[in-house]
């Protein structure tokens, strides 16, 4: 909606340029020929002053980053991935354009223009010291300067459009404060381009050319020292940030040593984190898609990053002052207190929307989980529900706090075989599959599907939680206990392949458990069923089914098509307004299903409304947590709510009924 205005502005500018045709336009860039020695001297002085100012402002930032704690788990390899990300995200500006197409394209033009201008700027300054290397009437010069001219036009138009967007249209994600320095820098860029283009219209060697030359040079030299103290630092840092990103999505680094409890104080911020927070361009894309921020919670991912940056500026990278403001002594220079509060940190569902599309490579989730670790591992976090969850995991080994005997009863009732090495798969029940009524229904239906397909499976005799909620809430003690127990149980039972109905289990077992050992390969039941889709019945129900991408299956594991293939077997697939990597969280992740929400709108209600607004008759889910969250949410937001079914249930409903004597095996 916002971006249509930009198109109108572009059109206006193009039509305006026709008026310039009254002037004499030459295809050769005019160049000042004679620089007097005083002029060259003045130029050198300006360059030195500009460079000095730049370094004077940049050095403390560089020092802060270099003096931060080293990342112990960092490795340059796989190098190929890093190079690819750099090419795709920085050079091709893929994330910048994809997530906000029109402003993204405008920014991409400005960036590409900067790159195209590299030689121009160099030659420009070289001229001033009589070392010009690219004569405008040479073969290369003729082509290059016109080429750069085209870019200059694109840049000028783009930057003007972006200026209008920021200062007149004012999208809320850019923040409510008017940034005068952004405006000034936009003006400088515009001036740089216009002063370049104007040189096509003036005579060689005249006074006008000199004026233009000095305008261009001064604009450049004033721009340089402005870079470090503004978000324009991303010009220098973000290519590095994207290249050096932690390998893996939402990758929580292992704790290093006995004194490491997570991000407690400034001295725990690592070099990668420092680099990332200084690269933030304050674009607000993270906030725009955050389920907490958009439903009235305190948490704002952008403000967490900027809060960490302000902290580093105020206290430095070796400080003992607490990062979370609850434990911090008040400082008059410390703005945005509420954003770095414990309350904000514990409102995150770890959906990953922020990190997934950050164009400068900031990885928000490890930072937020790091802050949570600092609070939970030290006992600073006192929350009734959080404590209840940790005690339940400690005592009963499952997140629901039910007796382990309940799972045994369920297994007996269903007649599931115990895994003994003779079956192909170990069916991992998980907390929801083992103890929750709806989760159990999904397991029962998936077991029916596996029996129908003739796939042998067994369940573990004793199974504890994978530790996912503890991991996301920052409790490394409980997580370690759960992970080590699980790894041992799988190893003892000699499991080779696991299938699970819960994306949280799949992600935690295949990825987070690596800190303590390698688990057997595990896949989600959508991947399993999709592989066998040719043997599953095709239903001609004519029912419209809207599929909701779970965060931990979609963004976390990039599994988008397999569940859709299953849904298409059961009815007509419908997409929600936000789907695939843009899917909106159900609100259960990050331990939030156990903590509950205290303020604002319920995340589950917002998403449920979005799903029911598609008019679909059925909501298809692939995660028992999403299923649970939508169960009451759908009835709350709709008079005639759609049916809610997991993809296993959608598949099993078309299978021939099982005779009682066959089900007990």
């Amino acid at each position, binding site marked *: 909606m916002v971006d249509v205005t930009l198109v109108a502005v572009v059109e206006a500018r193009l039509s305006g340029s026709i008026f310039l045709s009254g002037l004499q336009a030459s295809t050769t860039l005019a160049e000042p020929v004679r620089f007097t020695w005083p002029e060259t001297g003045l130029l050198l002085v300006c360059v030195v002053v500009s460079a000095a100012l730049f370094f004077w402002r940049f050095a403390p930032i560089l020092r802060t980053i270099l003096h931060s704690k080293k990342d112990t788990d960092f490795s340059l390899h796989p190098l190929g991935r890093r190079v690819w990300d750099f090419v795709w995200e920085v050079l091709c500006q893929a994330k910048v354009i994809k997530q906000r197409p029109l402003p993204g394209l405008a920014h991409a033009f400005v960036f590409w223009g900067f790159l195209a201008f590299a030689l121009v700027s160099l030659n420009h300054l070289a001229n001033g010291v009589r070392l010009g290397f690219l004569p405008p009437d040479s073969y290369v010069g003729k082509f290059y300067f016109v080429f750069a001219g085209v870019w200059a036009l694109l840049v000028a138009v783009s930057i003007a459009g972006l200026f209008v967007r920021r200062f007149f249209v004012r999208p809320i994600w850019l923040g409510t404060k008017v940034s005068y320095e952004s405006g000034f820098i936009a003006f400088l860029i515009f001036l740089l381009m216009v002063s370049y283009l104007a040189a096509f219209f003036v005579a060689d060697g005249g006074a006008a050319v000199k004026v233009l030359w000095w305008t261009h040079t001064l604009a450049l030299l004033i721009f340089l020292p402005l870079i470090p103290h503004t978000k324009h630092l991303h010009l220098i840092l973000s290519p590095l940030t994207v290249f050096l990103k932690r390998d893996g999505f939402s990758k929580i680094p292992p*704790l290093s040593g*006995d004194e490491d*409890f997570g991000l407690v104080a400034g001295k725990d911020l690592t070099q990668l984190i420092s680099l990332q927070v200084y690269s933030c361009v304050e674009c607000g894309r993270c906030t725009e898609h955050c389920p907490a921020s958009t439903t009235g919670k305190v948490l704002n991912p952008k403000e967490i990053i900027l809060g960490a940056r302000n902290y580093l500026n105020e206290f430095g990278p070796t400080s003992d002052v607490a990062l979370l403001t609850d434990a911090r002594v008040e400082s008059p220079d410390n703005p945005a207190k509420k954003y770095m509060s414990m309350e904000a940190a514990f409102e995150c569902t770890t959906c990953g929307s922020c990190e997934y599309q950050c164009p400068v490579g900031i990885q928000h989730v490890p930072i937020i989980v790091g802050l949570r670790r600092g609070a*939970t*591992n*030290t*006992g600073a976090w006192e929350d*009734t529900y*959080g*404590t209840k969850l*940790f*005690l339940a995991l*400690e*005592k*009963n080994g499952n997140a629901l706090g039910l*007796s*382990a*005997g309940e799972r045994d009863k369920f297994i007996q009732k269903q007649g599931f075989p115990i895994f003994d090495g003779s079956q192909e798969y170990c069916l991992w029940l998980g907390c929801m599959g083992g103890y929750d009524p709806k989760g159990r229904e999904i397991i029962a239906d998936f077991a029916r599907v596996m029996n129908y397909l003739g796939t042998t499976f067994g369940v573990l005799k004793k199974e504890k939680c994978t530790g996912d909620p503890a991991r996301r809430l920052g*409790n*490394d*003690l*409980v997580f370690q206990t759960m992970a080590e127990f699980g790894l041992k149980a799988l190893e003892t039972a000699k499991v080779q392949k696991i299938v699970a109905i819960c994306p949280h289990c799949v992600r935690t077992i295949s990825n987070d458990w690596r800190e303590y050992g390698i688990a057997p390969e595990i896949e989600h039941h959508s991947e399993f069923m999709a592989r066998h889709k040719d043997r599953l019945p095709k239903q001609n129900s004519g029912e419209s089914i809207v599929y909701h991408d779970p965060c931990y299956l979609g963004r976390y594991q990039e599994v988008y098509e397999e569940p859709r293939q299953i849904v298409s077997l059961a009815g007509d697939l419908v997409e929600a307004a936000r789907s695939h990597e843009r899917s909106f969280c159900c609100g259960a992740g990050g331990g939030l299903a156990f903590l509950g929400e205290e303020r604002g709108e319920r995340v589950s209600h917002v998403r449920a409304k979005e799903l029911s607004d598609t008019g679909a008759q059925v909501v298809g889910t692939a995660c028992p947590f999403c299923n649970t969250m939508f169960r009451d949410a759908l009835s709350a937001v709709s008079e005639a709510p759609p049916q809610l079914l997991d993809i296993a249930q959608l598949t099993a409903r078309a299978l021939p009924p099982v005779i009682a004597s066959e089900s007990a095996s």
Partner: protein
Amino acid sequence: MKILVAIKQVPERDAQIHVASDGKWIDESDLNYTINEPDAYALEEALQLKEKNGGEVVVLCAGPERVTSTLREALAKGADRAIHIEADDLAERDTLGVAQMLADAVKAEAPDLILTGLQSDDLGLGQTGVVLAELLGMPHATIIMQVEVVGSGLKAKRELEDGWFQHVEMPLPALLTIQSGGNKLRYATLMGIKKAKTKETKTISAAVAAAAPAITLERVYLPEKQKKTEMLTGTPAEVAGQLVEKLKFEVRVI
């Protein structure tokens, strides 16, 4: 203020219990152990008192090698020191025997206050704390929900039946047996576990060998289910009449 917390390690609450082959106790193989729940609340109360009034919290546990894990958890939650009374013969001791063992260790520590859970999750006798107080010659109160240090003594809130409470005051040193649910338990943290490694755990053996127990456990068995159901038929008036007959002459309650 030095607070000593006497804790017991018991089988996990949802463990599948089987009677041992000799019928005298339960089969202890394949069982997981944990802290007795009322003792966990006693520990929490001790930690909160320490946070309010300063001092030291010492945990004491008698049992075989496996109880050291429960002691470590207590240290991780915030206790300062642990004492392990090595004893493999708990099953052969009666309450007096156990209390004597504990009393010997307590005397050496001379604490200002002793807290322990009001009963254990496995035997549920509810006697050990009381007998221990008597052996030490200390005033005691049981089923405590809240403790407050007042001057050189304390004030405690006891839970009675039917929603009634009683407040008692007593001088220190004293012993209190704590009821579950009085406080919110804290979770063990990574920092706590790491600190626990540096805290002292002293191992001692029972000072006196177990005397012949005054009470022995003869037999352990699962409740035998007997289902005797008689269905009365007829009109409501007829059934009522039959019921009154049975209540009068067979069951003899009216």
